[in-house]
């Protein structure tokens, strides 16, 4: 370093403590083992979230919520140069982000990375997944085409089925008795103001925890004596691989967004019948199908079936969220195995109901 850059560095360092960060970054390592591949998925999710922020702001430049929402999305898609590409990238990236978050969650689950001291990492991650789902649900309505209209209509039937308070929750979300421009206006506020305001601090907390505790090694690695375990430095080795993964993700996204541009349907019409073959997005297919299947059980038919479905689903999610407090540590023994089987059942149920859902689209 020349004296001038050294002077600037010292000035900033004295005020921000850069050298402490540098020492921390040098010391940080990442475990190396057969399952190391799964460590990239949190980073990929983060990258896709950044893409969402960026493309989201670009869409915000021309999007107009309320009564003009369909017209403005039509303008973005067909009039503005490359507007179709920006919108397509936003939609594709949303789907890829949901996918990578799910992969990240299941890899954390099966590596048992939620165990002490990482319980809060798991809980904040579940919170982020929950908010991401609401992001998906609210964003889906914004173009106000036929599909978004019916998806929101059907989706809001789920909170509406909650006994007693359900209907008022649903109409509060809807802003009236039916999906209208009031709904799109409040979903817009939710999508671009409320949800980011909740998501960003939680994300910062989640990332801070990862720095604090480091990457968890799976139980098979933890069983090995310390000297047999391999690690690699985070700076620059893992970071370089992380960035390579980001680049791969960006290329896949660019390919999907440009080769399979996201479609815009007809403008919604509250008098038109639902289009044939309408179905939820893939990440909502499983809960949708589970609720439908439970509603078909004979002694539960009708409203009790819906309520039973929601109840069962809520219990399942609650158990899933609380897993760090059941399977607490390396010495969990039987509980550890039970948690593992619970995970397998969850994956199977998710895949099976999704498959049935797509199979039975009429």
């Amino acid at each position, binding site marked *: 370093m020349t004296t001038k850059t050294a002077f600037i560095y010292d000035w900033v360092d004295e005020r921000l403590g850069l050298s402490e960060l540098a020492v921390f970054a040098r010391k940080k390592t990442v475990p190396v083992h057969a399952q190391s591949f799964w460590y990239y998925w949190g980073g990929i999710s983060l990258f896709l979230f950044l893409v969402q922020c960026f493309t989201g702001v*670009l869409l915000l*430049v021309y999007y107009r919520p309320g009564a003009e929402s369909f017209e403005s999305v039509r303008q973005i898609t067909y*009039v*503005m*140069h*490359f*507007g179709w*590409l*920006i919108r397509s990238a936003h939609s594709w990236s949303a789907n890829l982000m949901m996918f990578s978050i799910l992969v990240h969650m299941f890899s954390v689950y099966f590596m048992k990375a939620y165990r002490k001291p990482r319980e809060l990492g798991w809980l904040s991650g579940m919170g982020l997944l929950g908010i991401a789902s609401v992001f998906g649900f609210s964003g889906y309505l914004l173009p106000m085409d036929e599909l978004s209209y019916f998806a929101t209509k059907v989706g809001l039937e789920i909170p509406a089925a909650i006994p007693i308070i359900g209907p008022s929750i649903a109409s509060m979300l809807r802003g009236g008795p039916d999906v209208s421009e009031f709904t799109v206006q409040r979903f817009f506020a939710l999508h671009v103001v409320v949800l980011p305001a909740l998501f960003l601090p939680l994300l910062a907390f989640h990332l801070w925890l990862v720095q604090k505790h480091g990457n968890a090694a799976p139980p098979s690695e933890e069983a090995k004596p310390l000297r047999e375990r391999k690690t690699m430095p985070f700076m620059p080795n893992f970071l370089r691989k992380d960035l390579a993964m980001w680049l791969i993700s960006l290329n896949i996204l660019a390919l999907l967004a440009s080769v399979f541009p996201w479609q815009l349907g007809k403008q919604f019409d509250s008098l038109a019948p639902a289009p044939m073959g309408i179905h939820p997005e893939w990440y909502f297919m499983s809960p949708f199908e589970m609720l439908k299947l439970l509603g078909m059980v004979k002694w539960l038919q009708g409203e009790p079936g819906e309520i039973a479905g929601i109840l069962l689903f809520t219990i399942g999610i609650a158990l899933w969220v609380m897993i760090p407090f059941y399977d607490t540590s390396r010495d969990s023994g039987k509980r550890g195995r039970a948690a593992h089987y619970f995970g397998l059942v969850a994956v199977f149920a998710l895949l099976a109901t999704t498959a049935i859902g797509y199979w039975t689209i009429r």
Partner: protein
Amino acid sequence: MSSHIVLEEPKMNTAEDSEKATRRAFLVAAGAAGLCYTAALAYPIYRYLASPEEMASSATAVKEVSLRDAQKLPAGSVLMFKFGTSPAMLIHHADGTWASLSAVCTHLGCTVQYEPHLDRIHCACHGGVYNAYTGANVSGPPPKPLKKFNVAVGENSVEVSRS
């Protein structure tokens, strides 16, 4: 023996040189590829954000505007209209003459106003005054006269065109 050494030395050098050369070539190629990649990402974003600007520039190319029924404009009054993308005035003077001028103040771009009682054009922003017949800057800060257009009064409309 020494001839062997002499023979080997240049060989080593070329190998080293070519290695250096390939490394340089690689770095240049990687840099160029990175630049192309960034440009490929930035270009659609630039065009997307510049869309309204491009649409407006096709509107500025307008050479002539036809104002329907404007021939009925009473004497001593003004009609504001859009010439391309910017506001303009069609003035029917009390003496029966017509004038059409740009309504964008040459000082800082405010929209100016025709004042029939004083028969002048006034800008409220900084007090600029223009001649309502010629567009000449009379007083105040405006540095230049207002742009004047040609007027042709027809039976059903008034045609305004760039001079």
